[in-house]
């Protein structure tokens, strides 16, 4: 019973991923079952509450301290004693020593010393002590979460989404909150009346939503008119292209694709950037493993990434690690840091000046040194862990989903994307959401490697996909910060010479266009490189800011429209989707991911403190996994102000809810929505808007 109440209180919280892979989520994820208007009303009195009763301050102060210590990954040298036993158990032994909590009171100290062993018992005990009625328990627990929403969001991630998720953490966290509450605010029951009072007085309407609705309408009409006009251009595309390039649906791909198409006879295709591979990649060199697929999926196999020049690479890493180990051992110890700073201050001082005054030179020399010494970029993948059958299934699934089954050019490149920034706590928020907040290059290369195998191609013929002998697949990296697209193949590959030249031209064009939108930056050809290599840069690129719509349809539908980098583009040919399965997948996976991203930007713009991480200027990274503001604060989940604002007061991102435009039969879209209650709920509650263009009736329908 209590367990159920606890779960229910947590249901309203959205998870928050660590800085290593920041996944976009709707911060009001837990309220999606409500109409957005109502959800916002609740959010205004909770997440956006400007002043909770001051008694909560002491409780928060202690919670922050203990969360910082327990959830630290790798910062402290002397870590929380007994953390191996879990959050509650370790604190159970330590809290009796915490003078700031028992404040020297014998009785309280005794009570802390005799806390029951299981967190459920203590939760029950505390709720009784606080005299919270049975019916109010869920709300009360929810209030304990939402008064410090960032840390709670992280606990939610750890207990439900982390690779080694532990359900117990949710209970442990509430146990801590309650123990602290009993000690520091015995009359915390008042929180309930405070909340109900605020809720009663809250306005139903949110002017911000009205403004958004107005912009949405304008945007929707413009795009619909353009798309309506372009519908006549849709044809069965069987022309022979010099090359086909597959990009992630990410909004940053759209202007890049336009720039490339201008350069010559190239076809570009939009598809989820993990290229349909639900895999994890294990780097055998640094011995790390991470899933590179959407967080909605669990990886089914693990691919090993190995260096080609094993000896050189291993030697390089060993040396680098030895130097780092030596540095850290001297830094985190008694007495030795005194010598360390005197011995290396000159080096740090020089490097600091070089990085500040000549950021490009500094980055380039570091890059060159590591490439030269370690040849670390030269790697290959060991696919032996994926059975041939599965490989064929992956390949067929991916090709069908991206609509690439009939005409193949000699060159087909899968362009996974990633960003290159320095000294950026939010770096991973610029990477590929479809790859779990990682770069998409690995997936691109693995799919290319799978498709280049004769055995796979042979098996694909049976699935009615015939790949010509002359076709070769490549993995490529689309750098969203510099617009550089690097095809992973030897420089000497003559077949690629033309394409490489076109890509270089496209890079120049797109980066100059893009830089016009970055404030106070001269849009020169090399400026993108400068931004990318600068350790002082807080706006190296705009990421997915200004995202506004998802267009599901053939490229010929959108090719002649300048969508200004505001559109997710997913390839879809309704005629090839015989059993509706492709559209179902698109609407339940990429569409949901796009919605999460859209909402993250939406809310970080709407209120950069409640839903965003605040300014980068005063950020302080805690536990190597999250950002606090200044000395200590709530864990600041969401995007930094600089990711969505041109300056402190002027938003760059326009807060619009996602508009989805689908090129497909009315009936099909309807039936999919009916069959997917989650999607129907999102549409009904106006979290997203779906519009279909019926190819036969040649008419728009909104759902």
């Amino acid at each position, binding site marked *: 019973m209590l367990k159920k109440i606890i779960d229910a209180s947590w249901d309203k919280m959205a998870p928050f991923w660590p800085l290593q892979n920041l996944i976009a989520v709707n911060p009001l994820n837990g309220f999606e079952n409500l109409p957005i208007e109502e959800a916002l009303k609740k959010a205004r009195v909770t997440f956006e509450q400007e002043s909770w009763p001051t008694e909560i301050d002491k409780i928060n*102060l202690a919670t922050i301290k203990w969360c910082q210590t327990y959830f630290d990954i790798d*910062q402290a040298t002397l870590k929380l004693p007994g953390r191996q036993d879990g959050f509650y158990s370790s604190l159970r032994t330590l809290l009796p020593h915490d003078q700031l909590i028992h404040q020297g009171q014998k009785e309280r100290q005794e009570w802390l010393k005799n806390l029951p062993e299981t967190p459920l018992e203590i939760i029950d005990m505390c709720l009784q002590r606080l005299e919270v009625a049975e019916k109010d328990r869920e709300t009360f627990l929810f209030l304990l979460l939402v008064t410090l929403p960032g840390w709670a969001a992280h606990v939610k991630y750890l207990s439900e989404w982390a690779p080694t998720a532990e359900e117990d953490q949710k209970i442990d966290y509430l146990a801590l909150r309650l123990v602290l509450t009993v000690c520091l605010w015995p009359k915390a029951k008042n929180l309930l009346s405070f909340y109900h009072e605020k809720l009663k007085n809250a306005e139903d309407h949110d002017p911000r939503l009205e403004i958004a609705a107005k912009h949405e309408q304008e945007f929707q009409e413009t795009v619909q008119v353009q798309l309506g006009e372009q519908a006549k251009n849709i044809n069965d595309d069987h022309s022979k292209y010099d090359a086909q390039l597959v990009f992630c649906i990410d909004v940053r791909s759209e202007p890049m694709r336009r720039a490339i198409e201008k350069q010559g006879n190239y076809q570009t295709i939009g598809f989820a950037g993990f290229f349909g591979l639900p895999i994890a990649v294990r780097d055998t060199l640094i011995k790390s493993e991470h899933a590179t697929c959407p967080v909605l999926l669990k990886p089914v196999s693990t691919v090993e990434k190995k260096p080609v020049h094993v000896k050189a690479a291993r030697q390089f890493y060993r040396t680098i690690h030895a130097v780092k180990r030596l540095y850290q051992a001297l830094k985190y110890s*008694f007495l030795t840091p005194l010598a360390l700073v005197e011995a290396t201050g000159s080096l740090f001082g020089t490097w600091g000046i070089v990085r500040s005054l000549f950021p490009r030179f500094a980055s380039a020399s570091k890059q060159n040194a590591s490439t030269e010494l370690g040849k670390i970029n030269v790697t290959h993948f060991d696919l032996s862990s994926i059975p041939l059958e599965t490989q064929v299934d992956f390949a067929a699934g991916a090709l069908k989903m991206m609509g690439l089954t009939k005409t193949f050019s000699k060159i087909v490149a899968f362009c996974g994307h990633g960003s290159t920034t320095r000294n950026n706590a939010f770096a991973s928020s610029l990477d590929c959401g479809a790859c779990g907040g990682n770069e998409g290059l690995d997936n691109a290369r693995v799919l290319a490697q799978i498709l280049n195998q004769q055995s796979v191609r042979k098996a694909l013929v049976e699935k009615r996909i015939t790949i010509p002998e002359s076709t070769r697949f490549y993995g490529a990296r689309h750098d969203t910060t510099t617009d550089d697209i690097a095809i992973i193949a030897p420089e000497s590959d003559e077949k690629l010479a033309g394409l490489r030249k076109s890509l270089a031209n496209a890079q120049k064009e797109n980066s100059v266009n893009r830089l016009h939108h970055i404030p106070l930056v001269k849009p020169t050809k090399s400026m993108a490189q400068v931004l990318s290599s600068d350790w002082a840069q807080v706006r190296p690129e705009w990421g997915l800011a200004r995202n506004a719509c998802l267009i599901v349809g053939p490229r010929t539908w959108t090719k002649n429209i300048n969508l200004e980098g505001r559109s997710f583009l997913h390839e879809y040919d309704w005629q090839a989707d015989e059993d509706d399965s492709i559209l179902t997948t698109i609407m339940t996976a990429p569409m949901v991911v796009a919605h999460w991203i859209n909402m993250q930007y939406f809310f970080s713009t709407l209120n950069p403190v409640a839903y965003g991480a605040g300014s980068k200027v*005063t950020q302080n990274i805690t536990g190597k996994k999250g950002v606090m503001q200044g000395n*200590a604060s709530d864990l600041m989940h969401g995007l930094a102000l600089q990711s969505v604002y041109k300056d402190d007061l002027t938003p760059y991102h326009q807060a619009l809810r996602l508009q989805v435009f689908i090129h497909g039969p009315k009936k099909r879209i309807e039936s999919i929505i009916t069959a997917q209650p989650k999607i129907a709920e999102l549409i009904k509650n106006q979290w997203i808007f779906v519009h279909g263009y019926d190819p036969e009736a040649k008419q728009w329908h909104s759902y």
Partner: protein
Amino acid sequence: MTLENLFNFDALSQVMVILISIVALTVGSFSWRYMRGDQLFTTFFKRLAIMFAYLLVLVTADNMILFACAWLGANYFLKQLMIHKSSWTAARNSGQLAWKYLGTGSVILGLSFGLIYYESGLLSIRAIAPLAHDTLLYEIALGGIVFAALVQSAQWPFHKWLLSSLNSPTPVSAVMHAGLVNGGGFLLVRFSDLFVNNDHWLMALFIFGAISSLLGTFWKLLQNDVKRMLACSTLSQMGFMVIQCSLGLFAAAVAHLCWHGLFKAYLFLSSSGVASEKRFDKPLKLNTFRVLVALCAGSIFACGFAYGSGRIITTLNTNSILIFIAFMAGVQMAFTLLQEPVRYVAAKALALAGLLGVFYGYNVWFIESNLPEPLMLVRPFHWVFGVYLAFIVLAWGLMIIVRQWDETGKLPTWYQKIYVKGLNASQPAPQTVTTQRLFYRVNDEKTAKK
């Protein structure tokens, strides 16, 4: 009154001016991009420029009135820079807390200067230096200077403002840790002539410095966020700088504050990137062979340091303390290197110890050699120094043992108590913590109009 009378462009001034210029150049150009889009961008740069101007006056001033004004002015603008946006209550409280300490320090410093003037009738620091300073009034004045120095360098028990100062914009922290906290050390060096024969004030300095360096290091090891870790580390480094002054090794203190300043400024500026940095320093595994090699490496490293910095290793005096610290660094270095699975690792570690020791010594010498001889007043060894070293070696050993215990998850209750005590003692002042998320302010229209 001519310019010559007001200022003193001696070697110390020159070294400090160069340091300040380097920090100003690095932090200034960094902030030019980092602060972009901030509502108070212009105000920030104005304050920064004024503060640097005050600092330049401070390090070159010879007239005590000028010195005191520059001291006060620099601290005032530091406080303004720290607060940055006053709509954020926690930041405002941080600034006010710092100002309470630093302002008091400044006033006490001014009063001490007044006493010196009253006693000597002179305002020029240069002119006061050669006089006899053994009257009671001098004693009191020196006490005031010691107080101002301890407050400025955030020494225990005046450290709270530093640990609560991280609501500042990152570049401000960089400037503060590379610049203004060094003020204490600079002050002591500037007035070194008044201190050389004053055993008890020097001993007092030693004790405060020793406690600060010990506590700072311990707290640093406990911290979970990067900026507070750096602040605790500064506390211990400043402790060492004060110790160096108390040992009569003023030139060494200047070397320390220069190199530490550049080091720490860099770490603050690059603190946004720590999420991608892994820790490699696993707990050490020791055996007899490794201990023996490490002791050898430590000795070689210490010899290298002594050679590089021009110190004599055989006589026991205050220099021996620096040499001992070099020895410990060499030992730790060798222990770490010996964990590597490499062939001839012991030989390589010994060779590296020699090389790095000389490099280290040379860096210290590089600054010291630019300073005049009277700033190197080697003093006799005192048993209190020995006690400090013994304490710190004990702490070092305990840390190694605790980290090994921690691996197994079994830590004794006494350690748990110390852990919680240390954690609590190193927390920022509660009013400087943003206890509710929305208390943090970034884009208030109000701030814009200000």
